[in-house]
């Protein structure tokens, strides 16, 4: 039998091809019963199992917390309750929001985190741009010092930091000036100033990492862009603000989100042994209410707090309440994070 296609010329510009198609079953066989397809399917299954498995590991603590947050105290005594509550209630949320000053903490933390993140992003961008695009004596030394600041854990210099800021008025020329004017009395006690001073000078939490990331990003920006701006008579600072900053928005958003999230969950400045929240030994003022302080058993649930399971559930509920606004922000900008880092082309 002749299987070859027959070609007929219909008009000058048109041809017609007639051929016999193989039956459907044959075609399906050829498509799916081969080693190439098997390999593809096996890899896909492997990949999906891995991705879903790891996603499960990441989400697991939050899933259990969400289930536990709706449990009532009686559920903790009932051995048959594992995840799903028999008497679902929103008491945990209600009491934490009402009695642990959730909304006030939320507002305070939001204001502090947003302002600190904004300052840190801007300052780190400035410093990183200076280190990336200008050759000057000491450039490399400065960069090494940036890496060094990243390596010194802030807890290990905690005592020295407290001492420095408590005696700010006598330890630096600026402090001396402020002290003389009467703005501070010897030093900062129970104050937000240390946090902002560290942020403005690019020494805040993980700012070394931000400077590193931004420096790599700016190194990837072609020099021609700035040169053309200089030729047109733009100054270096104007070039930075009008040309460099607008094109690095995804990277800046990434850094902003990191700074925001890490300040949001920060304990260093808000913990009981730190500069904000000094014990009455140094100051009797009440400390500012922050979101990291809400993870405690509210007074109304105190009576039921027997086994420690309720305590665990409450701290879980509190961490859901802490994380929730962050997740909202994250979902809005998460595309930008990946885009920002992908475009940065961080290369060794």
């Amino acid at each position: 039998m002749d299987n070859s296609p027959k070609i007929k010329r219909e008009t000058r510009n048109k041809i017609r091809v007639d051929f016999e198609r193989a039956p459907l079953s044959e075609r399906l066989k050829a498509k799916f019963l081969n080693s190439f397809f098997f390999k593809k399917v096996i890899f896909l299954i492997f990949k999906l199992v891995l991705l879903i498995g790891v996603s499960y590991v990441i989400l697991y603590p939050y899933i259990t917390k969400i289930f536990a947050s709706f449990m009532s105290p009686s559920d903790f005594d009932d051995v048959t309750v594992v995840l799903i509550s028999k008497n679902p209630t929103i008491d945990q949320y209600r009491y934490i929001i009402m009695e642990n000053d959730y909304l006030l903490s939320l507002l305070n933390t939001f204001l502090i985190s947003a302002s600190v993140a904004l300052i840190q992003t801007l300052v780190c961008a400035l410093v990183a741009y200076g280190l990336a695009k200008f050759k000057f004596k000491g450039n490399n030394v400065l960069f090494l010092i940036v890496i060094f600041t990243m390596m010194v854990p802030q807890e290990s210099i905690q005592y020295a930091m407290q001492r420095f800021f408590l005696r700010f008025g006598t330890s630096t020329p600026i402090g001396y000036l402020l002290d003389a004017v009467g703005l501070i009395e010897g030093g900062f006690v129970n104050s937000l100033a240390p946090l902002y001073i560290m942020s403005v000078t690019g020494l805040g939490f993980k700012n070394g990492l931000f400077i590193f990331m931004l420096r790599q990003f700016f190194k990837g920006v072609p020099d021609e862009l700035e040169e053309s701006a200089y030729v047109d008579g733009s100054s270096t600072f104007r070039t930075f603000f009008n040309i460099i900053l607008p094109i690095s928005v995804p990277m800046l958003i990434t850094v902003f989100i990191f700074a925001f999230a890490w300040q949001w969950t920060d304990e260093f400045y808000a913990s009981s042994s730190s500069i904000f929240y000094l014990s009455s030994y140094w100051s009797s003022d009440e400390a500012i209410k922050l979101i990291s302080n809400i993870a405690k058993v509210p007074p109304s649930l105190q009576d039921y707090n027997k086994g420690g399971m309720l305590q665990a559930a409450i701290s879980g509920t509190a961490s859901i309440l802490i994380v929730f606004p962050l997740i909202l922000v994250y979902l809005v900008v998460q595309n930008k994070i990946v885009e920002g880092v992908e475009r940065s082309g961080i290369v060794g």
Partner: protein
Amino acid sequence: MSLNDQIKRNSYEVKLASDSSESKEYELSVKAVDYAKTPDIRSQIPRGGVKSRLKEQEEARRRRGKMSLLQRRSLSGWLFALPFVFGLLFVYAPIIFTSLKVTFCDIATDGTMTFVGFKYYQQVYTTDPWFPITIWDGLEDLILQIPAIVIFALFMAIILNQKMTGRAAFRAIFFLPVILSTGIIDRLNSQDAFSDAINGSSGTIDTNTGEEAGGIISALDLQQLLGGIKLGAGLVEYVTNLVNNIFDIVSRSGVQMLIFLSGLQSISPSIYESCQVEGASAWETFWKITLPMISPMILVNAVYTVIDLFTCYDNRVMKLMEQALNHGGEYGGTAGGPSVAGVMAWTYIGIVLLFIVIVALILKSFVFYQRRD
């Protein structure tokens, strides 16, 4: 020197000297007329040659109080870095200095320091029972965890870099720990009795090892699996620990994954295309293309992982330091807390600095740098 060169040089000089564009044009035109008037340019060349002329110009510029282009550029660099330099000199340096000074001093209750020499160093290095052991264990943890985190991050980054449905959702989930697993959330998660209880409630006790089979896998299962292959008990334990601490590894590898992803994106697709044309398999492509091209990122990530693990508050050395800070020497009283913690901290920082240098040197010999330009 030709007339053209002369005009070029002069115009360059004018551009540097004048600020507004109007005066530039004016001077240029004057020069042009000058040349037309004086055809003998050789008379204008100074005796010492062009170099001395340049020097003269430099002198003149200095007298007028203007800087050369290079000087201006380096000054701008300093201006941009000014916030950090300022903070370094007036905030960071004093803090670091105090932190070092504290290790050599006794601190009275009112905060005055008296110099005591190496007393606390002696105490920590010779009489402290916990410090050497903790440092050793901490370093062991580091050495075991770094490869796990870097390899896991690379593996996940390669998978997340492939085109597939639901990639955006998976990426969103995978980067969640970067912003969530810090500070208070990290602490609350690590003391989460509730999810442990759920895990444990379905588990039973291993009769052989006496361990609770609460983890994802138990040592017993793995021993049965690996025992036939005659692997050492240490390795079995290592793998079991890794799998059971998968949450820690996942939550600590977010930034690393981002860095790897950016590295993978920067590899030119044409290299992969040519590989395909030459008939290389995916396996060969990974070892011959992806790995060498990504190797600078492996170095960056290894160093970052060391720093991250080392500065994270819940490693055992940091915990010991906190204990020492709050309870003082030998953790009994309250005297000398900051000094003892300071000695520990600076010793630890020194050791880890050394560690990073070693890691960087080892990895550097494997790193492949693509020559650009």
